[in-house]
């Protein structure tokens, strides 16, 4: 890819970027949020058309007009959000969308070749299984097998490890190595330094839509990669304060919550968090973390259980009461839940102002000028990059949107913060910022519930780690990497007593 340029309204997503991929290598694409990694790969996969530049395959200039066209050329991509049909079997999902399949599908032969493919790459799946019964890791395997089945020689993985357990990540990495050893090439999009260093042969770093550099793995270390990504040194490993936590602020007792499928996602769970304490909840996504967070925040109605804030029982499904009491919620799905895409940054920033009274005002005379001013201040304080405070929220990149949510939730000095994957999809610079903010609020005395998939994040921030599996807490450990294995077992469903 040479001199690729792509502009979106108000933003130059890719500015003259060049990228090359050799046969049989793992090439990592690393960069901050909104650096243009996904855009660049979407161009290669035919989802976007570049405004400028050219793409060459084995020396020939090509035009990739659609994902179908890309697949024909042997380029496949696994998106962050999987595109599988839950009610279909694995085999059906694999043949889905193959135009040259013909009208009748020979399921038997497809099934056996999927089985063989899966076994040879160490990605075992049962081709007859219905997809909804599978774990996230297995769904991802299907996506990869789908590409292998169509004969893809270049495989683009967009943040593949975000949803995986440490064990599943290992399996994926073994498969990637096998693929590469057979002459395929893999582009690995990530913002996790450790993984990039572990798996890749070369690393290309993007920053703010621009090309920073391509380096051989052997000639680069962690520190210099971080510097390339953010343009300065970042301290991710900073000290936690050792202040003793205060009195219990949030108590959850015997809470049972159902999920959207009407199954019990949280089962008789109890926990408590003290003032100035961060309780980290580790666990594979989909084990009731979201339902737990939503029930505490009042968005989801529990089957039974009690939630107390400073010994006062909260009414179920009363969000307004919680906001007034100082409960802040940074949900995982900020686009769908925490922001209004067509409203301005200012309006998004003050969505909750009626309850938080961050800017006190009469309901009959909303002072937009004061909100505007406060938003300008928060935008610079949280370094949200946007053309103006009147810009619609949907034009913000994922990272900037997250900063917007954080600015709104944290600026009111909440007593309880529920943070669900607060750094998912964020770059190192923004992550550092989130960590610092959360720790600052902890020092201020906030009780923080941190639900995160990343263990290092939990270790770095938490005072205690709880492991959640199928709606229950399997056990607690101190926040120390030496408990990783124990946590991994608990994440897979073993009770703490069984391990010890």
């Amino acid at each position, binding site marked *: 890819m040479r001199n690729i340029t792509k502009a*979106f*309204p108000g933003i130059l997503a890719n500015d003259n970027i060049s990228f090359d991929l050799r046969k049989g290598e793992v090439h990592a694409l690393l960069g901050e949020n909104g650096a243009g990694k996904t855009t660049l790969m979407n161009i290669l996969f035919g989802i976007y058309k570049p405004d400028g530049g050219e793409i060459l395959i084995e020396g020939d*200039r*090509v*035009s990739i*007009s659609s994902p179908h*066209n890309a697949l*024909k050329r042997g380029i496949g991509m696994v998106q962050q959000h999987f595109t599988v049909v839950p009610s279909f079997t694995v085999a059906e999902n694999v043949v889905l969308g193959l135009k040259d399949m013909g009208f009748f599908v020979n399921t038997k032969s497809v099934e056996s070749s999927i089985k063989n493919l899966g076994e040879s790459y160490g990605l075992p799946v049962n081709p007859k299984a219905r997809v909804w019964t599978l774990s996230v890791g297995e769904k991802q395997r299907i996506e990869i097998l789908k590409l292998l089945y169509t004969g893809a020689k270049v495989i683009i993985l967009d943040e593949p490890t975000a949803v995986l357990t440490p064990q599943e990540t290992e399996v994926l990495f073994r498969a990637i190595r096998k693929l590469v050893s057979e002459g395929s090439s893999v582009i690995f999009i990530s913002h996790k330094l450790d993984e990039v260093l572990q798996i890749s042969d070369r690393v290309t770093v993007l920053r703010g839509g621009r090309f920073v550099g391509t380096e051989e793995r052997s000639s680069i270390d962690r520190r210099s990669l971080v510097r390339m990504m953010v343009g300065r040194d970042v301290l991710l490993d900073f000290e936690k304060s050792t202040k003793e936590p205060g009195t219990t602020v949030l108590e959850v007792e015997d809470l049972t919550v159902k999920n959207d499928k009407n199954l019990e996602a949280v089962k008789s769970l109890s926990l408590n968090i003290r003032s100035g304490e961060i309780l980290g909840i580790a666990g594979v996504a989909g084990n009731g973390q979201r339902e737990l967070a939503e029930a505490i*925040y009042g*968005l989801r109605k529990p089957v039974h259980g009690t939630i107390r804030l400073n010994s006062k029982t909260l009414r179920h499904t009363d*969000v*307004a*009461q*919680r*906001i*007034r009491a100082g409960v802040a*919620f940074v*949900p995982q799905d900020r686009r*769908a*839940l*925490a*922001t*209004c*895409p*067509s*409203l301005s940054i200012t*309006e998004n920033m*003050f*969505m*909750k102002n*009626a*309850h938080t009274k961050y800017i006190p005002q009469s*309901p*009959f*005379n*909303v002072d*937009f000028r004061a909100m505007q001013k406060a938003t300008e201040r928060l935008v610079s304080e949280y370094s949200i990059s946007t053309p103006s405070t009147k810009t619609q929220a949907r034009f913000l990149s994922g990272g900037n949107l997250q900063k917007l949510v954080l600015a709104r939730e944290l600026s009111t000095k909440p007593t309880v913060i529920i943070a669900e994957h607060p750094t998912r999809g964020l770059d190192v610079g923004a992550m550092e910022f989130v960590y610092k903010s959360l720790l600052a609020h902890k020092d201020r005395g906030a009780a923080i519930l941190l639900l995160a998939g990343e263990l290092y994040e939990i270790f770095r921030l938490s005072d205690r780690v709880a492991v959640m599996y199928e709606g229950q807490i399997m056990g607690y450990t101190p926040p120390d990497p030496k408990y990783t294995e124990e946590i991994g077992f608990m994440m897979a469903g073993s009770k703490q007593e069984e391990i010890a």
Partner: protein
Amino acid sequence: MKLRIEKRLAVPRYSSILVPILSVAAALLLMGIILLIFFYGRLGTLSLAFKETFEAYKEMLTWPFANRYGIFSTLMRMVPLAFVGLGLSFAYRMKIWNIGGEGQLYMGALAATWGALYLFKDVTSPVLMILLISVLGAAAGGIWALIPALMKAFAKTDEIVVTLMLNYVAIFWVDYLVYGPWKDPKGYGFPGTAPFPQQARFPTLFGGEFHIGFFLAVVLAFILFYVYRRTRWGMNSRIVGDNAQAARYSGISIIKYTIIALVVSGAIAGLGGAVQMMGVQHRLQHGFSPGYGYTAIIVAWLAKLNPIAILLVAFLFGGLLVGNDQLQMFYKLPMALISVFQGLVLFSLLGGEAIAKYRLRVSREEAVTNE
């Protein structure tokens, strides 16, 4: 070279003005073709039909705005359109699709008649009478909209279907009353109630061609403009309209907002019905509204739910109705053709908005073969 239609990332600003203008122009053009065929059938030669179509258009577009009588007629036609349009905008801003403006207008008119002829018949002060009837009319429209509101808020029924069906119920209620118990014994068998007493009629201006309901509509539009712009309700309803999930997350009660939005929406339409009774009709009649409640949907949309713009668009549509009356009277066009024209306007408007989301791109660079 290759033509390609692709989705725009952002719809340009000028399209909000250009789309309505082009849509109405397109509708006029399509209507012209229909008129041409119609006149050709009547007159026999194409040249005469052309001339007649042109004349008819001239009449339709100039008469409502070009003379004293025309302008007052237009303003009077505008008032019910503006009331219902303003009412609908209140719900539409929250993406609650109240199609029941017509029924709420009828119920408002029905309640106003009840008040004027029966409930308040001993009230002699015109100010008090008008006030009481207005409140009664608004209450009736609001209660009529409360039915779909409760159903939507608590049973998640689709408000579009319920409000639409309730239109027929309201119209039949009025029919029952004007053909039955409320029928004017001195009305020579005509389906209508007795006339309103003098104190239940709006004061008129300019020799009786104009009533103060117009000023009420203007004041209401400015109040709503302020409500949408500067109040917490206005801001929260934008949140509910844009992302109901985010509204719940912000501690906004969707149930409360749904109910209030529909009830206020219906109350404004109901007030429009009462105003129409006190200002123009002075008695409840079978089919007194030529579909104001439906035309107001187009009005609200064309105005992008902006109250001030609703006044302007209602004025233009009022003119259109008056022009249509002229056509009907002097060119003997059937009423159905008028409905066709309104349908064409809405059709090209919706089509225009959809098209504005796309752009045509000419790509010269297709030198590379696809295999």
